[in-house]
């Protein structure tokens, strides 16, 4: 019982202050109940309607996952690992099993690697589509809210056929995957990805070429290349600033070394280029899915892996939809890890929020803020 509890402001306007130059600034708290904030709060100081100071206030979904993992064995932790970003569950799951396998020294069969990659890429598309729909509704474009959420169901259906669940798969386990491909999956996947690529062209016509969007996104929320690297940004945020960093190319894992795809970058670093990086990645993911169902090898999908975590250290990382997701895992011989540090893409991109918002107008906040694809649950863990 140290300090007395701070009162929660009842109104959204917290205070008015007068700066040294005589200008009055106003402190607003945006969120957590606000259609433009998600489950976090941004404390924004505005001068007129120019943002002069931003302090993110996360932690509304902090669930103490790092402590929970220390108390559970490595199989029981898999559903917990997925929850921070259930729209991108399999990528986070992959980071976890990858670090476990690194300590255990288990080699995954090639068919298992391909199935993992397949689910990862479908997840990347689903996650980007969810991002796009929220981006649309932030900008007041209701069609762009409905269409991506509708087309996301194409891939949710596919994933449900493969794993048995809509979005929380718990599909990747140490040593391989849980189920094999269902019959007729390949034709359905090819059909749906081809249809989806056509839809992406329609998205371009209705939203990304639309002056209603481009005039609100071009030149807004600029994050320079040097700043993005220095702040430790990752994923589409980093690639939108012109750095061609992608773990799928830089440190190829699973089936990625055998697949042909490109890393998309945009040099400008504004909201528009970050949005276009997402669009390009969805196209590339469609290509990857078609390649996988074409050249998936036959063989076992899973190899027996022990349920204990031997003594050792691993830093396993994968490229999730929001950037690099990594585990710093320390095993001590039992079935539970001694320490599992969990660093996700959104958590790393949180440092970029003040950088992209400063100097913009308050009305541009949703455009700039949501373009870095910040998923508060993933950042809070």
């Amino acid at each position, binding site marked *: 019982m140290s300090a007395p*509890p701070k009162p929660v402001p009842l109104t959204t306007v917290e205070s008015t202050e007068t700066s040294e130059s005589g200008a009055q600034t106003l402190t607003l708290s945006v969120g957590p109940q606000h259609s433009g904030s998600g489950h976090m709060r941004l404390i924004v100081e505005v001068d007129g309607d120019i943002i002069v100071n931003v302090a993110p206030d996360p932690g509304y979904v902090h669930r103490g996952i790092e402590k929970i993992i220390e108390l559970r064995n490595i199989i029981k932790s898999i559903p917990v690992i997925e929850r921070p970003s259930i729209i991108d569950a399999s990528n986070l799951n992959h980071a976890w099993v990858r670090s476990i396998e690194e300590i255990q020294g288990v080699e995954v069969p090639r068919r298992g690697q391909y199935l993992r990659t397949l689910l990862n890429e479908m997840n990347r598309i689903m996650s980007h589509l969810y991002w796009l729909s929220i981006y649309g509704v932030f900008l007041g474009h209701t069609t762009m809210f409905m269409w991506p959420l509708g087309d996301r169901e194409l891939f949710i259906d596919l994933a449900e056929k493969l794993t048995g669940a809509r979005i929380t798969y718990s599909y990747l386990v140490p040593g391989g995957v849980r189920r094999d491909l269902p019959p007729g999956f390949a034709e359905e996947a090819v059909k749906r990805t081809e249809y989806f690529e056509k839809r992406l062209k329609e998205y371009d016509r209705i939203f990304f070429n639309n002056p209603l969007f481009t005039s609100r996104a071009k030149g807004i929320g600029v994050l320079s290349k040097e700043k993005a690297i220095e702040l430790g940004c990752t994923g589409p945020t980093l690639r939108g600033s012109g750095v061609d*960093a992608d773990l799928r190319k830089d440190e190829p894992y699973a089936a990625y070394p055998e697949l042909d795809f490109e890393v998309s970058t945009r040099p400008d670093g504004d909201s528009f280029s970050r949005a276009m990086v997402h669009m390009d990645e969805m196209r590339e993911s469609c290509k990857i899915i078609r390649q996988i169902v074409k050249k998936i090898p036959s063989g076992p999908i899973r190899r027996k892996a022990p349920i204990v975590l031997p003594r050792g*250290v691993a830093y396993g990382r994968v490229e999730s939809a929001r950037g690099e997701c990594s585990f*710093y895992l320390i095993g001590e011989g039992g079935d539970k890890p001694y320490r599992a*540090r969990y660093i996700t893409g959104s958590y790393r991109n949180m440092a970029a929020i003040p950088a992209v918002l400063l100097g913009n107008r308050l009305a541009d906040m949703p455009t700039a803020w949501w373009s870095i694809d910040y998923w508060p649950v993933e950042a809070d863990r």
Partner: protein
Amino acid sequence: MSLSHEREDALVQKLKENFPADIKETNIIRRARLEVTVAPEKIKDVAAFLRDKLGFDHPNGVSAVDYNRENRFEIVYHISSMRVKDMRDLVLDLKESVPRNAPKVGSLVSVWSGVENYERESFEMFGIEFDGHPRLEKLFLTDNWDGPPPLRKDIRFPTD
């Protein structure tokens, strides 16, 4: 993928040449994973050297580990390089140890400004104080959190 550790050996060599007394221990876990343990007083110099001379400009995260049996905290900076394209798969773990009863170390925000949030989290989850940090406050926990730092090993919360 080659299995030799030439790059890692060269990095270790360079670090040992420049800081012969301060590099306490180096360990190559596997290819592209490297651990370097440094004395806490000198970590700022080593970090600045890594950033300026060796190209490690990209902070990946900061972990803190509680070794309560050995009565110490370990703070690990995971850093990588974006400037040097051949080294992008390499993650260097820069480690330092502090005694558990007086956890106070220097902050590295002046070297990599991206580590600000991670150091704040280590402060609230382990109670480690970072000297020179611009905003050492609570990040995720409630404002009136009155419990102990929750991620310490000796803390057990009642479960149902």
